[in-house]
């Protein structure tokens, strides 16, 4: 087993990952290589994930070893902000040609490293492996090692060819590279009892600077931010932090956990999205630091700052209340954000009529239920047409989502706000939440929507594409409703597992026939969740729904 495969296996064994924890040994072995579906996949590759995770290190030269596609088609496409070097925004690639494919690209890579050092003299070079050189057997570890020795400068191999898996695998492979080659290789000039690491924060749109002034005020020093506005040397001595906050659960949990393991740096998973979360995270940072030896008065100061900032934020949000009265929000985002902004939106008077749980963990869902009640609309994968119906049915006034679904909302003439990575506004911390309200208000009250929803005067009413689509769906719904057998057939036809194309009916039948109570059981009988595993949650829900009556029956 190659070292890369070993690393990948290791990553999939990640005990800190909720998803992995629920997988069988066999499933884990498969890693993520199976979860991509030809003709139906959309996300980025492992290389993409690695680059996303590491590129925000600002003073490093990021050198991509591969043909032009990997870097030429993708560079300078992220909105991280830097307070210092702009080297990270420059693009370096070996742009392999046919000769390199035939004779191997190692020499070119070595020369490229040399050129970069001569011209830009960065404190370190990260070298990213991609599919083609991996296929032809270019050993970037060896090249990096040789170059590092020759040029006396860290040259870090990041083994992340795209075809090993999706983006989030790439995030973790990037983390592994840091753990193996960088972290712990330098010492800070001094340490303080207030030194923390922030892991998995990319400083998109400079939004981390919305919360950093508060940390500064509290005297809390960010020893290393991995990786937003990060510097190589800070990363190298980040093992001296007293505690760490892991910002995005999926991206670099391996880094947080292994730093705890190796260097005894405790971490917690927190978020600076939302007022309550921001306060919780600040408290947790203070608590951990005190636990690791910081003076107890830090907590008092933290509470004082929290009280002040919360008061200011709630006061600022107050003014939106009349504007947000009776306004309904549909939230389509992933993971933590699906619930972390809910509270703030609700406090400002917005009603959340639905939130997507596509990438959410079970815990995320619990939090959502807590906040929104048992009847919370939790939205799984949707086709654009379904999403449009949802917008209409829920009578939402605005959709908050990532860039991908924007065209659905916009073309449907629905107010929409980007709350994922492509946005140009920062929404972090207290001030960011107020900023979010402002943007929501702007979007909601834009008079443009009313105009765009009007059909052209020469179109007959009811022939716009939206009305057509809606009419079609309503006709189907009516048909279904009119005929109980059809309704049941439709219900049962709902696809649960997209990879293996298993519908609800088949699963219910299997559960009924075999008295299945576990996801594994369902998989054995129906193959559902035998693919990417994304439907596991849905299968669990079905099992739960069936368990209740069974339990009742058993009582």
């Amino acid at each position, binding site marked *: 087993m190659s070292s890369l495969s070993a690393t990948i296996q290791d990553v999939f064994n990640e005990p800190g990952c909720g998803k992995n924890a629920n997988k069988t040994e066999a499933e884990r072995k498969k890693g993520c*290589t*199976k979860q*991509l*579906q*030809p*003709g*139906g*996949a*959309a*996300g*980025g*590759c492992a*290389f*993409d994930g690695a680059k996303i995770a590491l590129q925000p290190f600002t003073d490093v030269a990021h050198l991509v070893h*591969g*043909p*032009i*596609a*990997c*870097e*030429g*088609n*993708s*560079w*300078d*496409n992220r909105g991280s902000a830097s307070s210092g070097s*702009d080297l990270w*925004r*420059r*693009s*370096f*690639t*070996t*742009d*392999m*040609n*046919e000769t390199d*494919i035939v004779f191997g690209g190692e020499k*070119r890579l070595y*020369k*490229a490293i040399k050129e*970069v050092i001569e011209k830009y003299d960065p404190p370190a070079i990260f070298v990213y492996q991609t*599919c*083609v050189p991996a*296929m032809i057997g270019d050993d970037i570890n060896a090249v990096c090692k040789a170059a590092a020795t020759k040029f006396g400068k860290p040259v870090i191999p990041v083994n992340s*060819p*795209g*075809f090993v*898996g*999706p983006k989030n695998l790439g995030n973790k492979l990037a983390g592994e590279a840091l753990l193996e080659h960088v972290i712990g290789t330098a010492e800070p000039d001094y340490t303080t009892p207030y030194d923390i690491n922030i892991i998995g924060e990319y400083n998109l749109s400079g939004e981390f600077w919305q919360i950093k002034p508060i940390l500064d005020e509290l005297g809390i020093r960010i020893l290393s931010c991995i990786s937003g506005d990060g510097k190589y040397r800070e990363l190298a001595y980040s093992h001296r932090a007293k505690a760490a906050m892991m910002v995005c659960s999926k991206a670099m949990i391996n880094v947080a956990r292994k730093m705890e393991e190796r260097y005894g740096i405790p971490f917690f998973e927190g978020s600076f999205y939302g007022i309550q979360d921001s306060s919780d995270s600040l408290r947790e940072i203070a608590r951990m630091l005190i636990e690791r030896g910081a003076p107890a008065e830090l907590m008092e100061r933290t509470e004082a700052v929290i009280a002040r900032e919360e008061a200011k934020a709630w006061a600022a949000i107050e003014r939106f209340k009349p504007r947000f009265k009776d306004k309904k929000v549909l939230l389509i985002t992933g993971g933590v954000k699906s619930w972390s902004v809910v509270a703030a939106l609700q406090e400002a008077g917005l009603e959340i009529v639905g939130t997507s749980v596509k990438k959410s963990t079970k815990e995320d869902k619990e939090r959502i239920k807590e906040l929104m009640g048992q009847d919370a609309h939790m939205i799984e994968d949707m*086709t*654009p*047409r379904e999403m*449009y119906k949802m917008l209409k049915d829920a009578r939402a006034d605005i959709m908050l989502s990532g*860039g991908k679904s924007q*065209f*659905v909302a916009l*073309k449907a003439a629905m107010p929409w706000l980007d709350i994922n990575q492509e946005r140009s506004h920062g929404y972090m911390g207290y001030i960011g939440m107020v900023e979010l309200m402002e943007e929501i208000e702007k979007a909601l009250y834009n008079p443009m929507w009313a105009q765009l929803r009007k059909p052209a005067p020469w179109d007959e009413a009811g022939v716009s*594409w939206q009305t*057509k689509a809606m009419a079609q769906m309503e006709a189907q719904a009516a048909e279904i409703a009119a005929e109980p057998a059809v309704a049941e057939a439709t219900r049962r036809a709902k696809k649960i597992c997209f990879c293996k194309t298993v519908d609800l009916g088949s699963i219910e039948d299997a559960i009924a026939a075999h008295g299945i109570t576990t996801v594994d059981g369902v998989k054995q009988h129906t193959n559902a969740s035998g693919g990417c595993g994304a439907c596991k949650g849905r299968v669990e829900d079905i099992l739960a729904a069936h368990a209740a009556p069974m339990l009742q029956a058993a009582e």
Partner: protein
Amino acid sequence: MAIVTTSKKACSVNPLKMSQPIGGSFAFMGLRGAMPLLHGSQGCTSFGLTLFVRHFKEAVPMQTTAMSEVATVLGGYENVEQAILNIYNRTKPEIIGINSTGVTETKGDDVEGFIRLIRQKHPQLEKFPLVYVSTPDFKDAFQDGWEKTVARMVEVLVDPVEAGAVRDVERVNVLPGCHLTPGDLDELRTILEDFGLKPSFLPDLAGSLDGHIPDEFTPTTIGGIGVDEIATMGQAAWTIAIGAQMKRAAEAMQERTGVPFRLFERLCGLIPNDEFIAFLSEISGRPVPVKYRRQRGQLADAMLDTHFHIGGRKLAIGAEPDLLFDLSSMLYEMGAEVAAAVTTTASPVLERVKAQEVLIGDLEDLEDLAKARGCDLLVTHSHGRQAASRLKIPFYRAGFPMFDRLGAGHLMSVGYRGTRDLVFDLANLVIADREDNHQPTPDTWRTTDTGLQVVPPQLH
């Protein structure tokens, strides 16, 4: 006569180039009901997709065979088969356009063979339009991918016509290079129609990526030229190819159907449009409409107004060959000096660029040359923004991608009108730069005693 050289660097810094498979996919986006499919790892598609989405601010259809490491080693038949079936079943396309990538070319997948096998295995696909083009990432560039793909479309999709068949004298095929925008195609369509001609654009991005609101939710392209219309292109009286890259497709068309072609290497500038309009007048047998006579006058006048600002500028330009040739020639003809020219791939037009040298290189090369040669106008795609801010010279975005400004699809450079607006935009950029950064001060001409040859930069 420019000398064409290739950068000797091992490391490309700030690439100008994009890969040829996505150039191929781009061409497929100009067909109606199409789903472009890259045979490669899913990153190959997602990077391209993101690039198109950022440029056009539109949902863009593009799929992947999602090759895993294992599949790469074993060969991608299953992936290609599954991808085609999935797309065929789910999105009900009218055509699937497949381009290979570096990954699958390194392995050497015989995709044409795969397709034959798939058609055998799945009779519903027997006649279904599937076009495959080999476009490895490690060769050539974006423009080449487009060139090869359009040529292949002609070979696969156009019905052969026997010699002596009756032609529709009003029908004209237009084969536009990838350097033309949807806005350019709209303009060309209007011009052709004003001469009473009925154009078929292959590909027709104006129909698909012009930013209109679609009539229905569909995951394939909306608008664009239909496979049915392509099939009948052999009935046209003429083919007009725009950009040297389209010669290949035009020749394929001629070979297959006997339709003669006329190649217009450029459509930006006065003389190229004179030739174009005269040609249309000739083939249509109609006089030049008053509208274009007036537009010609407007362009001539715009050139007079703007030459004070464009003339004498030292231009640094980075673009794919046909766009480079077109824009740099126009600017040369307006009196600019083409002081630094960088491109992505070889082309017969390069040696006719009005520069001493054309470098096949990257944006670092362009930036270095611009700096060394004191260039004071930068023209390249959006990736030039970092160089522009370091060079502190006016920056005109041209080409693909243009992700940091809106309306990329509607920019025009063709026709009298397109050229007119372009030279106004450029001149205004120069004027604004002069106002913002080069106002004279009491110290502007306070030179050290090194002689008058050292003229301060604002004097250019």
